[in-house]
């Protein structure tokens, strides 16, 4: 049997389960009850992934998850406590599992260093070591250093008696977690800023960027010094970096970069060994490794890890996974070793693993609940019945001729056909609908990691994660959402001491909320941070010449400024949100999906960003309108009201913008035939005004006539033509002709530009 066809579903399912596991762990970390059900559910993930991996011949994954499963089993049985350290280690394990699976899926080497580190940690926990999460003990002597034969005699997992002290003193601990040995030419740099945030003025990120300009770099974040949350001093920098630069670079070039932080930070620069044999020092604990270079590392030191994993007695070896014997394990280890030596690991401690996962989710298949499929089968059945009814009817007409009494039957039949078709369409669309939790799932972990990195305390609340939307939309909102959330964490929420000083709770609140409204899905990102400083935004906009020096804008327009290209409050640029991808990209991404973005903010109280997106990209409720003798489709959702235009209520402001007085309000008017350069229709002696809303702004569109409303299937104009300003696409009407769909946002912009032109001519 060819197992390859099961790989795809296995990966998809595994990633999904791991997401769940991560969610459970984060809940535990946030103080959730470590009840049996939750622990069991975490256990089940490891168990299922292991079973699947073993069946499909993914040895590395099976091996790793087996250890994880054993530990979780012990916890489940109450033999081990679920401590904070355990949760932290398990979160690390989640990353490793993902990496291993991605590596297997994409046929690329896994991040060996991270795996070894995690394995060491897990084993430590299994052996009942206290608090491996303590800063110093994170890389403490590990059982992994034991020679293989020692392990064979060691105790079963879960036994408290097992000593975790290394038996092989010849291999110093520092080497254990880093089988990766990059070779020269190049430099290995250890950089610990050792500073208090905000006092030193040396932004580590800038340094890292500088180094990157030298050549190909590998950066590893060393976060072992991070204390537990309650011991964390938010002003203290706990992070250090190990940077490996490849290339023939003069030492001075490297030193120059660190020159002005040298006095404060701890920096060591050493050449990369030119070959394995003359290599010195390890990379796991550069602080020590660099200060006191270790003796040569026997290359055999590493296989211990590989072999040992498999040596754990397989108490409940699954039927489908034959347990590899120690001998076999030893036999396969050396080739496995060859991989890490030649391939650089990706950032071992990268805080967010989103990108890899996002890629996984872009996969081309959907898992559909059986009830959705059944509903479609039922509908197809009904459709067949309607078809045969209409077929019978036509035979009857052929035989007996048509008489007027039959008309009603024909109408009934057609009505039934229409209903069937619509239901079928809705149900088929429903197949493509997925809960937004697919996009939201990454955030608990991301918020957790980013907040920690920033020294902020954040409580994330997710509301409405079961809200469904089209898979294509879902896939495309991931990145904009990540950007907005990072922005909120970075710029929105204040550090705890600032919050305290302002009488706010120290823990900042971030809410992700999704709900349906009409035919749209609304996603809100709400924080209770400092809000947007309108004055600063205005000042910045004036400085950049985006608005006139004296120009004053209404509040909404001020917030719109932050979405303009080139608008960035530069002094705030940081590792997280200032990386070139501006809010303008977020906005254009959302608009490309046919959505809109609105910002509400209150200084000192927080910011609320509201995204409105269509549920699906392929079908829309449309209002057919006539302009200049041509039929266009207006998205029904954008229409506020339509009215007969009273010419007395039309006025021109300063000879430029045309406005219409509607009740107590003046609404800008756009003559559609003007911006589309169409002939004015004959019916335009009595034109209609359709009030539409987009981006929170209301505008009246002057049109010739309103026709019916209908659902339209959206066809892109870009497939065979290109993007046309003011149009979002096209559709095919009942008579086979093409009608163009109006893009409200684009029309507003066109209108504004036309207004400007008119002003220029005047």
């Amino acid at each position, binding site marked *: 049997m060819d197992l390859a066809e099961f790989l795809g579903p296995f990966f998809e399912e595994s990633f999904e389960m791991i997401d769940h596991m991560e969610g459970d762990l984060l809940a535990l970390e946030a103080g959730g009850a470590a009840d049996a059900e939750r622990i069991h559910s975490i256990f089940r993930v490891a168990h299922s992934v292991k079973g699947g991996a073993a069946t499909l011949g993914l040895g590395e994954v099976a091996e790793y998850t087996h250890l994880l499963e054993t530990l979780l089993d012990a916890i489940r049985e109450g033999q081990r406590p679920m401590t904070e350290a355990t949760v932290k280690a398990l979160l690390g394990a989640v990353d490793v599992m993902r990496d291993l699976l991605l590596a297997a899926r994409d046929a690329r080497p896994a991040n060996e260093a991270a795996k070894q580190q995690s394995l060491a940690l897990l084993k430590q926990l299994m052996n009942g070591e206290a608090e491996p999460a303590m800063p110093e003990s994170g890389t403490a002597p590990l059982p992994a250093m034991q020679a293989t034969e020692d392990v064979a005699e060691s105790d079963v997992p879960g036994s408290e008696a097992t000593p975790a002290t290394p038996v092989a003193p010849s291999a110093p601990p520092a080497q254990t977690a880093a089988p990766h040995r990059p070779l020269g030419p190049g430099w290995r740099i250890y950089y610990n800023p050792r500073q208090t945030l905000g006092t030193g003025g040396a932004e580590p990120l800038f340094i890292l960027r500088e180094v990157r300009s030298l050549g190909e770099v590998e950066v590893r974040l060393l976060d072992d010094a991070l204390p537990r949350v309650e011991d964390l001093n938010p002003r203290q920098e706990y992070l250090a970096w190990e940077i490996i630069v490849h290339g023939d670079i003069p030492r001075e070039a490297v030193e120059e970069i660190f020159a002005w932080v040298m006095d404060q930070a701890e920096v060591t620069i050493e050449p990369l060994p030119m070959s394995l044999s003359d290599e010195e020092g390890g990379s796991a604990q550069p602080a020590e490794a660099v200060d006191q270079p270790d003796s040569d590392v026997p290359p055999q030191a590493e296989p211990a890890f590989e072999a040992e994993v498999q040596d754990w007695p397989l108490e409940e070896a699954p039927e489908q996974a034959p347990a590899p014997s120690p001998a076999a394990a030893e036999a396969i280890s050396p080739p496995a070793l060859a991989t890490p030596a030649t391939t650089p690991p990706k950032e071992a401690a990268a805080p967010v693993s989103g990108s890899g996962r996002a890629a996984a989710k872009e996969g081309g298949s959907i898992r559909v609940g059986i009830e959705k499929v059944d509903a479609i089968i039922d509908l197809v059945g009904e459709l067949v019945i309607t078809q045969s009814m209409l077929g019978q009817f036509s035979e009857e007409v052929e035989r007996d001729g048509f008489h007027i009494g039959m008309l009603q039957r024909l109408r009934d039949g057609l009505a039934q056909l229409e209903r069937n078709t619509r239901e079928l369409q809705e149900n088929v669309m429903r197949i493509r609908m997925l809960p937004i939790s697919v996009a939201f799932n990454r955030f608990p972990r991301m918020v957790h990691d980013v907040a920690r990195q920033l020294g902020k305390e954040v409580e994330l609340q997710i509301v409405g994660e079961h809200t469904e939307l089209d898979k294509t939309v879902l896939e495309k909102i991931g990145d904009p959402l990540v950007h907005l959330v990072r922005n909120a964490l970075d710029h929105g929420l204040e550090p705890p001491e600032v919050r305290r000083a302002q009488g706010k709770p120290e823990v900042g609140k971030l809410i992700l909320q999704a709900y349906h409204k009409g035919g749209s899905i609304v996603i809100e990102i709400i924080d209770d941070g400092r809000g947007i400083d309108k004055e600063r935004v205005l000042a910045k906009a004036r400085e950049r010449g985006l608005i006139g020096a004296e120009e004053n804008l209404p509040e909404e327009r001020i917030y719109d400024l932050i979405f303009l290209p080139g608008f960035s409050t530069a002094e705030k640029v940081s590792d997280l949100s200032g990386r070139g991808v501006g809010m303008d990209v977020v906005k254009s991404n959302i608009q490309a999906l046919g959505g809109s973005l609105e910002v509400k903010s209150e200084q000192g109280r927080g910011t609320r960003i509201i995204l409105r997106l269509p549920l699906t990209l392929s079908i829309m409720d449309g209002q057919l309108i006539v302009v200049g003798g041509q039929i266009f489709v207006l998205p029904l959702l954008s229409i506020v009201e339509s009215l007969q235009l009273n010419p007395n209520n039309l006025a021109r402001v300063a000879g430029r913008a045309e406005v219409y007085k509607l009740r107590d309000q003046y609404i800008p008017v756009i003559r559609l035939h003007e911006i589309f350069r169409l002939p004015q229709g004959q019916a335009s002696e009595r034109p209609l005004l359709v009030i539409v809303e987009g981006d929170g702004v209301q505008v009246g569109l002057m049109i010739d006539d309103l026709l019916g409303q209908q659902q339209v299937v959206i066809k*892109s104009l870009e497939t065979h033509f290109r993007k*046309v300003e003011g149009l979002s696409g096209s559709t095919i009407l009942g008579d086979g*002709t093409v009608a163009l769909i109006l893009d409200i946002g684009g029309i507003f912009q066109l209108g504004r530009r036309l207004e400007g032109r008119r002003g220029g001519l005047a």
Partner: protein
Amino acid sequence: MNALRPDVSTPGGVRGDVLQYLSFILHGQEYAVDILRVQEIREWGPTTPIPNSAGFVRGVMNLRGSVVPVVDLRLRLGLPEVTYGAQTVVIVLRVLSPERDRIMGVVVDAVAEVHDLAPQAILPPPEVTAQGLEGFVLGLVDSKGQLLTILDFDRLLDTSLMLVDAAGPVSS
């Protein structure tokens, strides 16, 4: 179905060392296009105009569910406009561009015939071409005493030239 298929004895456009070209008439002149690019030939039917598009863009049509732009080749080449008649046809072509392959229709006065041409019979375009044709000619052929101009539709139907600035000066 109002589409007529080109009469091609051997599908695929290549017969031995011979290349096949579909020729059509435009303002009394015969032009040709690589038959492998031709998808079908249709009678002219009404199109939906696209706002703020160049004058030679007739609009879009429904080609069995695909929305496909239609270009008037006379106007594209700066030839005088004529009213469409019974002979007027739309040649549906595959147009290649760096971004993607597109399907487009071009309106011509009439289709003429399918020519079998030896590659060596196709001469490179002269340095100086007729006005309006600069850069659009792939080659010239003398077929049975008649001059055939082979057009480069990938350049003629470059979509970046098909829209005008909506807020730009109004052309009457």
